[in-house]
């Protein structure tokens, strides 16, 4: 039971991270019908930005500012760096190809992904970085329920992932921008006919999706402590898998899909073997593509005439 609960907590942490990545995939797909393969690398840059702030303020052992403030600043930096990067990518790699055949932006996306990975390799080198969270925050602090222990940093990560998703949900459901985003995703021309500035909505979508990916990058750095130039590849694929399983284009779907992938991964690592975890995750992807390609919350395609 204790082991089960521990895996559950692992799964929730991972699930929160994958959900945040999946959201960006899904939102961009919803609005542009584009698989933004550079999205995982945007997340990687967020993790590095968090690392840079950590180093700038003296590193994990001896930070010059209170740890709470430091972690907050790392999140801000990761989200800002990824957000700006996402907007720049949209502007220079995708917008010029808006009316090109659909394969063109896809190729552009793969190109941007390679570019970012190699740029990170050049700047940061090939070695793994660690946030060294255990030196910042005593890993034994946290919640203790009988045999189950949840470290404070995991609690912070899970709660901030949930908070970000709640904010996103409210934004999309309640605000004018959110309504414009949903309208544009459903029918871009009809949205323009309402006076919606479609280009601005697309920029906002990239910005929001990338900010969430940046937050996910910092979360992974804090909990799993492996920051390196290639980290966005597998994480991106898993975010994509989560988006497809949830129903690509659907926001609640991305959240559900992320959670599902996180749990599947944690439980297969815990009960079977960590060598099988990716097999099981991508097996799920294939199963969904075969059996229910629209995903859990399949988004109906608009009737185009």
């Amino acid at each position, binding site marked *: 039971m204790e082991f089960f609960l521990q895996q559950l907590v692992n799964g929730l942490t991972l699930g929160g991270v994958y959900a945040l990545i999946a959201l960006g995939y899904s939102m961009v797909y919803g609005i542009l019908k584009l698989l933004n393969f550079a999205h995982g690398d945007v997340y990687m840059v967020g993790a590095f930005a968090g690392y840079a702030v950590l180093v700038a303020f003296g590193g994990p052992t001896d930070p010059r500012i209170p740890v709470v403030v430091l972690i907050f600043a790392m999140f801000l930096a990761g989200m800002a760096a990824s957000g700006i990067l996402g907007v720049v990518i949209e502007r220079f790699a995708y917008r010029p190809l808006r009316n090109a055949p659909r394969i063109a932006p896809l190729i552009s996306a793969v190109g941007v992904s390679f570019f970012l990975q190699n740029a990170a390799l050049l700047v940061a080198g090939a070695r793994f970085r660690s946030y060294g969270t255990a030196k910042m925050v005593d890993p034994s602090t946290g919640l203790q329920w009988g045999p189950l222990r949840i470290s404070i940093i995991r609690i912070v990560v899970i709660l901030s992932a949930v908070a970000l998703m709640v904010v996103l949900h409210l934004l999309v459901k309640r605000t004018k921008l959110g309504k414009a985003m949903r*309208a544009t995703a459903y029918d871009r021309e009809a949205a323009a006919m*309402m006076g919606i500035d479609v280009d601005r909505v697309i920029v906002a979508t990239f910005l929001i999706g990338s900010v969430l990916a940046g937050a996910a990058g910092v979360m992974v750095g804090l909990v799993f402590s492996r920051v390196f130039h290639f980290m966005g590849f597998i994480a991106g694929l898993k975010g994509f898998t989560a988006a497809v399983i949830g129903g690509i284009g659907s926001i609640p779907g991305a959240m559900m899909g992320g959670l599902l992938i996180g749990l599947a991964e944690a439980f297969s690592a815990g009960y079977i073997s960590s060598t099988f975890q990716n097999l099981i995750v991508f097996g799920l992807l294939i199963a969904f593509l075969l059996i229910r390609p629209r995903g859990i919350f399949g988004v109906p395609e608009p009737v185009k005439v």
Partner: protein
Amino acid sequence: MSALLELVDVDTFYGEIHILQKVSLEVGPGELVCLLGGNASGKSTTLKTCLGIVRPAEGRVVFDGEDVTHAPTSHRIARGMAIVPENRRVFAPMTVLENLELGAYLRDGDLTEDFERVFDLFPRLYERRDQLAGTLSGGEQQMLAMGRALMSRPRMLLMDEPSMGLAPVLVEQSFQIISDVHAQGVGILVVEQNANMALQIADRGYVLQTGRIVLSGPASELAEDEDLKRAYLGR
């Protein structure tokens, strides 16, 4: 009387394909003008050119004395244009209320009065206000498209086949509503397949054929035009 909306020698292309050729037309303030023409003659393209969804290669679009040829759609809507698009184009996964709010996208402030006005006109929409637009019947979706356009308080309403696909009783009703909106002083440019009925309520009309205006004049004269009768009026 100076025109509210005016197209001056407009040429519009889709890629290489030349659609509108030297199209000129005007709609006065509060005037009801119909645009007739066969399939693929360029009627929808004309409306999209007015609104700036497509841009003309040559010629000018003038709205309320301002040359808006290069102005974005949002500017034209903010100045008082609105459209009821072909095939309704309601936002199916959003509620009726949200669709109406989107019609007022560029307006700030309180929409209560506008909701009331639209719900007075279409009580059915009030009953369905929290329902997803995609679950409405075709006729209800047409009402929604109309209500949505009115939410921006337009001075110039572009309507693309508002009666298409409606049962006869609803066709009558939609023409009644066009007349009502017209009576409130809104300028209207309406594209109609239903030429007979359109000419009955319109002040003037234009006939478009393969991208050119081939005939224009007061609606009463057009209704009697022999060529037009043979081609469109089925008499």
